[in-house]
């Protein structure tokens, strides 16, 4: 996992598998960033090959944290297995303060637009 800031937008990039064990440090990072006042967050899961309900919980956590301050969360993934899990969990139906993008550039553009 690495965190980078693109034009004041924090991007958490994760590679590999997100399960109930590996989710912990990602959860801590989301908590740190949102506690530090970040309104916008990009979860770059482009390199994530596996995700289960632990990953779903992370996304919901991020949305819950930015929601009260009117922020938003952008998720990046093109992996159809990952997207299928999000669909079953009902995440893909969330439209307020959350959207899924197929590239980091698209996610950054969308967040920039929201910020302006």
């Amino acid at each position, binding site marked *: 996992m690495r965190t980078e800031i693109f034009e004041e937008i924090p991007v958490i990039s994760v590679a590999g598998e997100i*399960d*109930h*064990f590996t989710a912990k440090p990602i959860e801590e990072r989301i908590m740190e960033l949102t506690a530090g006042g970040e309104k916008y967050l990009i979860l770059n899961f482009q390199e994530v090959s*596996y995700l*289960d*309900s632990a990953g779903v919980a992370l996304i*919901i956590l991020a949305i819950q944290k930015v929601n009260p301050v009117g922020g938003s969360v952008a998720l990046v993934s093109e992996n159809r*297995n990952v997207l299928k899990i999000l669909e*079953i*969990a009902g995440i893909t139906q969330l439209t307020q303060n959350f959207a899924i993008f197929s590239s980091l550039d698209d996610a950054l553009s969308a967040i920039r637009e929201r910020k302006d």
Partner: protein
Amino acid sequence: MTQVPEITIEIPSDGSQLSRVRTAVESFASDHGFDETQIYHIKVAVSEAVANAIEHGSPRGSANRVHIRLKDDGNKLVIDVTDEGRFRARLPTFQPGAGYRGRGLFLMSALMDEVDIRETDEGTTLRLIKKREAAGLEEWADIF
């Protein structure tokens, strides 16, 4: 390719073992002819069941063990995840703020054909069943 009809994996009740379990599940399901999408679904369901066993079915923490048995039962794959705890304590909660806690069980039900829970004095077994897909069109063409 040699097909072993049944394997059992025993792990200490520790989250660091989840990845290892998924690797074994993938290998077994692949050897037994399940496709990539089915294998992903089986991996998620088993991983959720094992994570559940670790979190709620292990009163002595990592001193407890979790047993995962994979069995090819002809037209279906049967997976038993057995822990050393009671199931009642881990039913999903739907309180506000804890809305995602039940999703593990929910995903298992959505991804597998059957999910069954059996509780005994020794522990709890969660049985997951994935059926093979019905014969494809090509196979029907061969039959008729």
